[in-house]
Every structure is written in structure tokens, then in C-alpha cells.
């Protein structure tokens, strides 16, 4: 009798272990749970890097690789984005032809509000990024929109981020529409694509701090806190969507347009994953 009981028990355990291999939550609007996703991601990172406090992840790869951090700290002694900050402040304060300015389009005059973006716009049923809000403010006031990836858009965004340093991200996912957008971004992040069959997570979750040629990919946690950034590879300042385009292309996929709905949803997901962390943009990266 005992043999039968034990055999059945063992078979049950084996069957359950097979079932447990498939995730059963978080793949639909009904089941997706942004807070649970964030806690799970934090737990993953705690297991991988037990000596790194969660608050450190705003610093990307420099949170987990001492050698890279030493070089980065040397670079930050004379931040390469300083001139962009000055240019951004000037652009931000320059009145439009109609006498209004960017400050008129944002809460608190646009100062210290970076942590609220990207935000879910329930009326429009879409995610609004900070760069999108900046350009909409310009066009609504009869000005020409900035280009999306670098230059003035990144400089203004950098200035607005700078005025928000230390503020804590707490991006809500308030309704089913927002959940659908969040889920779309989450799905994009974890989906393998392109000729190289790579997902964002392949490099930034399992591949974090593991060499990809000569690079050490940054951790998935905190990736949205420090943009826009001056990348050594770019030689200038750029937005997070500029980075998305490059990553997407590097997987040998046909990449999307910056500020496309999918990239905005991706930024929404990534920023929700950064909830509880501080704004520390603009930043400098390799």
C-alpha cells in the first residue's frame, strides 16, 4: 500500500513540477499584476546580486560591476551632459511666438515632474511620454515639433529630469486600458525577436553583467530612471526611444519608429518596474 501511495505521490510531484515550469499569471489583462511583476524582478536581482541595494539600480551596470563603476565615476566628475543641461534650460525657458512657453503645458510649471512620466491618458487611451508631451506642447502652441531622438528634445527632457532628481517614480496603472498598455510593453520586453532571436530580457535579465562581446548589459531594474543619457557610443545626448531603436535593430529586427505605440508601452512597463526608485537623469553611459 505504501509503495502505491509513495509512487502516486512521486508522480504527482513530477507532474506538478512540469506544470510549474509554465508561468500561469500575468499574461492577460485580467491576471497581469504590475506590483507583483516589480517585486519578482527585484527578487531576481537580489538573488543575482545580493550585495547590491535595490536603490542602486538607478545606476545601471555601474550598480553591479565595480570596474565599470570606477570609470563611470571618473566621467561623472565632469558630466558630459552639462552643456546639454544648459541648452535644455534655455530652450525650456524660451517663449513661443504666442508668448506662452513649455512651462504653461505642465503641472508645476514643468519643474520636478519627470517622475510622473510616462503616464496613462485615459481619455486618449494611450501612454504619453515626456518627450511626446513636450512636442505636443510645442505644436499646440504653433511651434514646430523637435526631432524625436536627440538634440533639443533630449536637452529639454534632460533639463526637466534634472529638476526632478531625487523624486520617486510611482507610475500608476489605473484601469484595464492602462493594464493592456503595460502588458503590451511587458510582452515586448520578454519576447525573443529578430534574426538573433533575442529579447530585451535576454540581455538585461539573464544576461545582466555577462559579457556580450565587450559590453556588460545593464540590469532590467531601473533602466528608465536615468534617461536621457549621453552615450559614449553616440557621442551626444539621446532619448530612451533612441536606445530602443538601436537595441531593436541590434537584434536584427525590422525596428519600429521612435514614439510608436509599442515603444511607448515598453517605456511605460519599464518605468512601472522602476517605481520606488528615484529620478537620476540625465545620465552618462558607455
Amino acid at each position, binding site marked *: 500500500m*505504501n*509503495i502505491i501511495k*509513495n*509512487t502516486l*505521490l*512521486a*508522480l504527482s*510531484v*513530477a507532474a506538478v513540477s512540469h506544470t510549474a*515550469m*509554465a*508561468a500561469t*499569471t*500575468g*499574461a492577460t489583462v485580467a491576471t497581469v499584476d504590475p506590483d*507583483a*511583476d516589480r*517585486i*519578482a*524582478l527585484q*527578487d*531576481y536581482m537580489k538573488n543575482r546580486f545580493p550585495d547590491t541595494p535595490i536603490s542602486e539600480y538607478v545606476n545601471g551596470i555601474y550598480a553591479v560591476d565595480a570596474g565599470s563603476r570606477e570609470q563611470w565615476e571618473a566621467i561623472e566628475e565632469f558630466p558630459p551632459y552639462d552643456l546639454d543641461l544648459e541648452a535644455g534650460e534655455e530652450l525650456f525657458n524660451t517663449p513661443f511666438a504666442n508668448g506662452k512657453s513649455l512651462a504653461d503645458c505642465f503641472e508645476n510649471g514643468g519643474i520636478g515632474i519627470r517622475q510622473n512620466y510616462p503616464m496613462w491618458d485615459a481619455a486618449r487611451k494611450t501612454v504619453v511620454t515626456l518627450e511626446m508631451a513636450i512636442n505636443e506642447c510645442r505644436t499646440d502652441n504653433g511651434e514646430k515639433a523637435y526631432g524625436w531622438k536627440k538634440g533639443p528634445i533630449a536637452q529639454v527632457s534632460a533639463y526637466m529630469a534634472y529638476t526632478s532628481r531625487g523624486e520617486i517614480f510611482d507610475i500608476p496603472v489605473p484601469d484595464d486600458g492602462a493594464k493592456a498598455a503595460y502588458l503590451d510593453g*511587458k*510582452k515586448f520586453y*520578454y*519576447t*525573443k*525577436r*529578430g*534574426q538573433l*532571436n533575442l*529579447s530585451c*530580457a*535576454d540581455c538585461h*535579465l539573464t544576461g545582466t553583467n555577462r559579457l556580450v562581446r565587450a559590453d556588460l548589459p545593464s540590469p532590467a531594474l531601473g533602466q528608465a530612471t536615468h534617461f536621457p543619457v549621453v552615450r559614449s557610443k553616440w557621442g551626444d545626448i539621446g532619448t530612451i526611444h533612441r536606445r530602443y531603436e538601436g537595441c531593436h*535593430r541590434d537584434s*536584427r*529586427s*525590422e*525596428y519600429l519608429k521612435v514614439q510608436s505605440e*509599442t515603444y511607448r508601452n515598453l517605456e511605460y512597463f519599464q518605468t512601472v518596474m522602476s517605481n520606488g526608485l528615484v529620478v537620476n537623469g540625465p545620465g552618462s553611459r558607455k
Partner: protein
Amino acid sequence: MKKIAMIAALAALSVSSLTMAQSFEDAFNMNRAMYGAGATFEWNGAQYSTSSIEEELSSKPANKANAEALIAAAEAKYKEAQEVGFAWRDNSKYLKEAQEALAAGEFQKAMDSAARSHLQSRRGVEQAAYAEAHWIDAVPPLN
């Protein structure tokens, strides 16, 4: 006794895994690896080629009609890959090369480039189906 029970359970699992029918994809890949393109193999009682669809199409006589047909097939497959959001970076480049070669009367080159694009699009469509079923597996679980 518990050990015997565990061994019985593991044996049962192993047997169930071994007795699973071989999929067409596995059979194709195994025979392709063993014999290369142009061979035949049997699967579920029927004969199949170890050549890919693209190898079959591009090995037809190099002429205008076959080049046009292959380019049309590649364009349709590219559209399919785009619609599911899994077109690869170089699909359009290969299609352009195929069209330019066709215009220049270089039919074999046109067919080779179109076949390359077709292969990438077909793989992209397959990748989309796999991703739909498996993307969630990569999400860290709650402890």
C-alpha cells in the same frame, strides 16, 4: 520503499518522454543534419525532401517567370511577417536586391535573394507563433 517509488516515477516520466511521437520539424532537422539538402526521408509513412522550401524554389530554372514568382512569394511572406510584427532587419534589403537583379536580367541572383528574404520572413512568422506561446516563460516568477 520510497526510493523504489521515486525510481518508478522517474522511469514512467522517461518512458512517456521517449514514446512521444517525433514532430515533422524534428524529423526534418535530424535528416537535414545527417544527409544535407536534396535527400529524402520518411515521416508518418510519407516521403519528404530535406531541402527547405526556399532551396526548392530557388533551384527551379533561372528565368524571368520563375524569378517573378519567387519574388511575389517573398513579398507575400514579408507582408505576413510584418503583420505579426516579426519582420527581420534584412528582409527588405534582400527583396530590393532581388528586384534590382530581376530588372538587370540576372534571374538566378534574383531568385537567390528572394529566397533569402522568403526564408527570413518564414522564420519570423514561426518566431511569432513561438513567442505568443512562450514569452511569459521568461518573466521572473514570484517566490
